[in-house]
């Protein structure tokens, strides 16, 4: 398991720095603290770029606190409140399985089982030995119509089932890149899986 140690220091790189300046500029003077959420996100993405793990180490939170003139504890509060900030290292692919009722009814248990077997882990929150996967349980991702949902990093993979999950993770393990996001069952958007049932093209031109 490649649990990274807490780094000794953190600094925004040039790419991040441009985003940071832009984020802070959104807010009026004296209200810079409002930029805490974008900055946490920028830091997390920078960590992903540099280390392959998208998380916000504590030193980064301290850097952000200093930058925004806030007490460090205020940054910790925000970072720990929102589950999209990872305050511990995660795998390269963060498997966020929705297990809320609609997804569960549509078979999220199979998705969870496939994730476990492919990553070789047994619990939510665990990271696979190769450091590739961390599986988290998340609440409704707001895409129930394409349930069940597996979110990997920023992307939604929809209409999942056990088999497709296994294939997807298998590819990733083999070094493949993330496929395009969206339905894995081949439907377009949230259109009915069995083809259109309404708004069909009219056969008879209207009189």
């Amino acid at each position, binding site marked *: 398991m490649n649990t990274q140690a807490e780094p000794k220091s953190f600094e925004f790189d040039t790419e991040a720095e441009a985003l940071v300046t832009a984020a802070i500029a959104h807010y009026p003077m004296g209200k810079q603290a409002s930029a805490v959420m974008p900055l946490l996100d920028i830091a997390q993405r920078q960590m992903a770029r540099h280390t392959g793990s998208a998380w916000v180490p504590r030193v980064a939170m301290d850097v952000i606190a200093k930058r925004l003139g806030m*007490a460090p504890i*205020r940054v910790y509060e925000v970072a720990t409140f929102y589950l999209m900030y990872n305050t511990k290292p995660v795998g390269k692919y963060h498997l966020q399985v929705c297990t809320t009722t609609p997804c569960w009814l549509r078979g999220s248990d199979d998705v969870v089982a496939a994730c476990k077997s492919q990553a070789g882990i047994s619990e939510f929150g665990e990271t696979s030995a190769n450091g590739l996967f961390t599986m988290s349980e998340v609440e409704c991702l707001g895409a129930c119509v394409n349930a069940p949902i597996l979110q990997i990093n920023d992307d939604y993979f929809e209409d999942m089932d056990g088999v497709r999950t296994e294939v997807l993770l298998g590819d990733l393990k083999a070094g493949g890149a993330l496929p395009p996001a969206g339905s894995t069952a081949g439907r377009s958007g949230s259109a009915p899986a069995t083809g259109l049932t309404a708004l069909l093209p009219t056969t008879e031109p209207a009189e």
Partner: protein
Amino acid sequence: MAKVTVDGIEVEVANGASVLQACEAAGKEIPRFCYHERLSIAGNCRMCLVEIEKMPKPVASCGQPVGDGMVIKTDTEMVRKARRGVMEFLLVNHPLDCPICDQGGECDLQDEAVGYGRGYSRYDENKRSVGQADWGPLVKTTMTRCIHCTRCIRFSTEVAGVPELGATARGESMQVGTYVEKALSSELSGNIIDLCPVGALTSKPYAYTARPWELKKTDSVDVFDAVGANIRVDARGAEVLRILPRVNDAVNEEWLGDKSRFAVDGLKRRRLDRPWIRENGKLRAASWEEAFAAIADRLKNVPGERIGAIAGDQCDAESMLALKDMMAALGSANIDCRQDGAALDATRREFYLFNTTIAGIEEADALLIIGSNPRREAPVLNARIRKRWLSGGLAVGLIGEEADLTYGFDYIGGGPESLQALGSFADKLRTAKKPMIILGQGALQRDDGAAVLAAAWALAAQYNMLNVDWHGFNVLHTAAARVGALDLGFVPGTGGKNVAAMLGGGVDVLWLLAADEFETSKIGAETFVIYQGHHGDAGAARADVILPGAAYTEKPGTYVNTEGRAQFGFMAVSPPGDAREDWRILRAISAYIGHALPYDDFAQLRAQLIQTNPIFGEIGEVRRLAGSNLEGPVGNAAAIGTAPFINAVHNYYQTDPISRASPTMAACVAAHYGTQAEAAE
């Protein structure tokens, strides 16, 4: 003003007041956990629910502003039911460990559960539990008991100005804490123990020591700084177990510094509980009779001008008066209370008082601090400055050592030259309506102290700080006894010697009344030293005769705080062993050497004290002086040196014999300043 009806009682409250305040005005008690009148409103415990006519649901009264004509009901079935529901939810995750909880007997949750709790629990899932966190040597945490009221968070953020506490994670996983394990670094951290409505935060040194109903409570005055915070001394038998603040809006509101609260364990250690006599260079235990005989022997044939006395920083006014009177009877004018050599000018009271008064800080709109770190010298007073600063419109300037004062300031410079070159801060002072100066002891304990005093006074005069209805010149003392001593004239009389002149062989016999804060090594080798005090500290180590006196909790006494407010502390316990109240010792020895003091009991002594200065009779009062006499102190402002100001207090936790003897204070020093303090005992 808004007119509202509470349970049929009509009351008028200010617009913007909360419904809870209106209920209180009507004499109705509203249960609350998160609301606290000195903190911002959080509205998260929901215990304060009331019913308001025309509102469909119960309303949290602490966060609801009053409206004219509101009809509020605090005791309807709806209210009771709602509060019972809140209580049931609070208790879902609260451990029922009251028998082993230190808060037991003084717990808000326990008290309210009597009224709103049910006799059994309907909840049989697992309770949430939270790991133990270490917040340093003073505050013990049992966060499983926390009900997330956030009072501690709001206190440290708002009042203490050291935002270290917060609520991390959310929902059931929410935890109140520091996130990164650390010792709380505020000098006011102990107050969160009082604020916590449950047993989540309790006193670490006091853990498992006593139950509140076993304690004898005595009102007293704090002596660890010159603020004179009002305290309650809780004792069981002969032992002082803890110190808590009492409310006094003019002085400490309801806060207390950590040293004042936690140095009590120093009262049990290194105590002088019997007389000692030095024989052949070694101290040996003696009886009172032997000690008195040794003193009488040594005093024989010594002329008055070869005898001197120095009063310490924690003495009560009564014992200092007794010593002063005895010295006068012996024909000596060599008395001084300024151990640190501070160039305090006792000729006019306003030269050495905090004339603006502590509550007066809230009126000021500009503040210049010279040679002081109020956060370390008087944390409670510092909280008042911060309170004023938070409310906006206070410009603060600092001359001296730069430090985190918990509020923003313009740093002007480190030394006396900055007094003349205030830079842009001069404009802020000039345009201010009520500007004030705080002059620290660090600025006065130097060779050019008198010049600094004169220069500071001149500044005050120049920037219109002295006028009929505003006195902006303030001396911030660090010694609880100092102002009282100056008020009763414990300074050299005509031709008398000051501390410096008494040292180095300036006198043959030197009487130290609990005086330890000067370099005792400078006492002349031939000088016979009598140490009367309560702790085996620097003074006792040098003494030829030791007379065991009483610490502040062991004697009744008057203390005058830095504002010039005389306050009276009652006796909580008796002095240990053979030790006696200090005035009694002085009365007895004076009779022994044939100069019996003219008072036989404490009442007579107090009468004498009030005759010396009527100030001592005005207990609890403060005379706010008008700054109409512009004539300054005697010092020559031009004689000022160039050395930068050094603050009087660097180690907040150890400033006096009691705190130096306290293991808790030593632990604080280790936690905060990184160095292990000199081992106690």
